[in-house]
């Protein structure tokens, strides 16, 4: 199997069409994948990438079209069928059961049996251990998946997909939730798979990754393939152009001179703010920072180092156990989220389906939430429906929210367009302080660009911005200053001009190169950042 000659299509799709009710998700899709290649799929949010891959593993059935696997036309009626054909998939949203162990997850739905009835757990554990070892993943087969970090979970997903000798592995946006170091490791894993003769189909919004690992790339737009190219010698801008049908502005570095905000009064000031979880462990440890009007403070860091807590502490969604939060000199430490919003805070949360939106409610109501009075939609105590609809239509046009009518339930929009709804709602508040977490996670380049522009524009109007992102390029592109979070502490704050990816990367990992950080990281962090933290501490006190 491994020695399939290159050039022979292992997988061929012809005229695949898939509709959801009136919505055409995939129009007439053609795709050819050569055995042994790493094939990237790119396209805007909602272009139909995930849907297409779900068809390949039998989760969806196409309305029409033909799938050929190794030259034979096939009907794939479910993940089990796909697995029989040697197709495995790692989904965009993890498909692991947190309460089950790594081994149990890998063999979920296809456990080896004992006495015909019981699942043979010993065999599962042993086989899982062997698999993990074969792919070089240092994981304990008996550990509960719920206890694993995101990157580790993804490995479980990959092993799960490969467990039954999947020849074709589909990865749907595997890097969206990974840290830079984890992304690099994943790229190595993919390269390793290619060496083992596997075919990899790989969806990503990050063109750098396409260049780094893919042999060929197919771009999808509006459910149609707009072309397949060799990545060799292909410019990122060319892929971007294919994707959105125009050239895109790629935010580079923000052109502010160092020290431009020196001396300006702070809008947001955190004074040794701490949070604890119920076990008493500090998830946020005496964080001190200031942001001035018009300034963008970027926070880089590996996920789980207190960024979420920081955002929630500032927005009042998490109780702080120590320190003070000051907005424009006002002590808001014990203010509720509502009071903070009234005081001028806006928040674009990291997970739009979790905190950002109410999927079942309409676009208009999601846009209107918390803005009704502000936007003058309340007449005589009642929300004027015509005004609300007009308001929503205005935002939809202005923010180019695709596929949305005021009455459309937000949950049916694609990820990028959902994100635009959140951004539109929060910016409509003309906030004094904007807290943004992972603003472009899973968002296509066109939409990312748009969101970036909006953030810059808000700062241009004098909004102080706290930008949290695990995407170093994003932080570097937008921030005036950059702080790094490590184990709940803000270990370094430097001007963007002085920042490089390497320097930030080192600070993020505690300079030991060990992603999870070790006990010795404090000192190491100190050595790279004493200057930055020093000034910041001074500014804060």
């Amino acid at each position, binding site marked *: 199997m491994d020695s399939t000659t290159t050039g022979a299509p292992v997988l061929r799709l012809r005229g695949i069409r898939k509709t959801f009710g009136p919505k055409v998700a995939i129009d007439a899709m053609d795709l050819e994948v050569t055995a042994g290649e790493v094939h990237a799929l790119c396209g805007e949010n909602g272009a139909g990438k995930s849907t297409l891959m779900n068809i390949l593993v039998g*989760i969806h059935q196409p309305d029409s079209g033909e799938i050929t696997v190794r030259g034979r036309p096939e009907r794939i009626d479910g993940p089990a069928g796909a697995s029989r054909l040697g197709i495995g998939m790692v989904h965009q949203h993890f498909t692991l*059961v947190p309460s*089950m162990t790594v081994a149990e997850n890998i063999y979920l*739905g296809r456990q080896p049996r004992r006495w015909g009835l019981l*699942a043979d757990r010993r065999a599962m554990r042993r086989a899982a251990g062997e698999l993990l070892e074969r792919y070089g993943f240092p994981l304990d087969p008996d550990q509960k998946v*719920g206890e694993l970090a995101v990157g580790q979970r993804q490995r479980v997903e990959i092993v799960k997909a490969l467990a039954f000798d999947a020849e074709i592995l589909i990865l749907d946006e595997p890097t969206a939730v990974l840290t830079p170091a984890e992304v690099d490791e994943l790229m190595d894993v993919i390269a390793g798979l290619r060496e083992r003769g596997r075919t990899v189909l790989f969806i990503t919004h990050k063109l750098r990754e396409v260049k780094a690992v893919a042999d060929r790339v197919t771009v999808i737009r509006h459910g149609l393939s707009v072309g397949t190219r060799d990545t060799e010698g292909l410019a990122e801008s060319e892929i971007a152009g294919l994707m959105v049908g125009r050239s895109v502005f790629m935010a580079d570095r923000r052109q502010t001179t160092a020290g431009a905000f020196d001396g300006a009064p702070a809008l947001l000031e955190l004074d040794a703010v701490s949070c604890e*979880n119920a076990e008493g462990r500090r998830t946020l440890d005496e964080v001190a920072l200031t942001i001035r009007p018009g300034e963008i403070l970027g926070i880089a860091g590996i996920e789980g180092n207190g960024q979420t807590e920081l955002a929630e502490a500032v927005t009042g969604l998490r109780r702080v156990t120590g320190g003070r939060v000051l907005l424009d000199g006002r002590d808001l430490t014990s203010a509720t989220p509502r009071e903070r919003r009234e005081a001028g805070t806006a928040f674009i949360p990291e997970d739009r389906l979790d905190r950002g939106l109410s999927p079942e409610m309409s676009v208009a109501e999601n846009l209107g939430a918390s803005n009704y009075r502000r936007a003058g939609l309340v007449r005589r105590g009642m929300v004027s429906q015509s005004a609300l609809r007009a308001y929503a239509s205005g935002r939809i046009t202005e923010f180019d929210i695709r596929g949305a009518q005021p009455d459309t339930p937000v949950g049916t929009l694609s990820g990028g367009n959902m994100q635009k709804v959140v951004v539109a709602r929060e910016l409509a508040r003309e906030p004094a302080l904007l807290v943004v977490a992972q603003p472009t996670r899973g968002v296509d380049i066109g939409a990312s660009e748009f969101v970036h522009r909006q953030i810059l524009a808000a700062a241009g109007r004098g909004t102080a911005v706290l930008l949290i992102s695990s995407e170093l390029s994003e932080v570097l592109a937008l921030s005036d200053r950059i702080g790094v979070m490590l184990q709940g502490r803000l270990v370094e704050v430097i001007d963007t001009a002085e920042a490089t990816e390497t320097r930030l990367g080192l600070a993020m990992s505690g300079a030991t190169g060990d992603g999870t950080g070790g006990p010795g990281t404090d000192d190491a962090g100190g050595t790279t950042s004493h200057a930055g933290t020093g000034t910041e501490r001074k500014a804060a006190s």
Partner: protein
Amino acid sequence: MSGFTSAVLIQTVPVLLAALAAMFTQQARILNVAVEGMMLMAAFVAIAVGQITGSVGVAVLAAVGAGVLMSLLFGIFTLRLNANPLVAGLGINLLAGGVTVFLLERVYENPGGLRPDEFPELWSVSGDWLRAIPFVGPALDGQSVIVLLALALVPLSWLLLYRTPIGYAMRAAGEDEHAARAAGISVGRARMTAVLLSGLLGGLAGAQLSMAALHFFLPDMTSGRGFLGLAAMLFGGATPAGSLGASTLFGVAGAAGDRLQGGAIPNQLVLAVPYIAAILALTAARMGLFRKIRSARRSRTAQEAADGVAV
């Protein structure tokens, strides 16, 4: 003492079976309020069939079959027709009440109940080995097979749930539908299996109720035991051992309540004891769980549970 233990046991078993019934569906993420109706239907069929055939075995099988049939109906409505499980379950209960009285009225021309003059005795189990079991042994002696079966079903359902592929499938379908589907599990089938299992157990509960001691059927004779089972299951964290513990607690509350009767406390309040116990127990369990969740690493499902969005 043995009298009390045996009273507790008798009161525990129907609730335990109902709890186990609701547990399977709960693991597959369906709140099963229909256990009450399944029990009622089974209780009726047990007597009706026992009267005709004179055979205990056939009667029990028929009762279980009736429970399964009701659960199938519940499953079709909730899983195939997307009915809200809460309302569909209450609808099943209404239907069971309606059908039993309707049949009593049309077939037996006695809407008040069905009491055959002759009814076969449900097999009971006794023996020295049984009495030798510490604490519960003497109380177990002479109990119906269903009582022993119910107790045996606690480890058996644990085995089914945590050690068999179908158990894995049900739990996965309940915990993360997408994950289950991606693993090639037919979520619909897994859930349906859970629902049918609950019908089986609900059927046993009904058979125990009408066949073990009474040998007759009365309309509404389940009197909320299915709901108590549901509460016990939730209190027990939807696990077999937890369900056993919680059902036993309710059994103790019930038996103790019976002994409080005739005392200074008004009888209506004594009768409320198991329900009050259920509320207190559930709250206490959640308070404990809540603390655990808050201290657990922040995962999304846990957070949802803490926020009371999910059960």
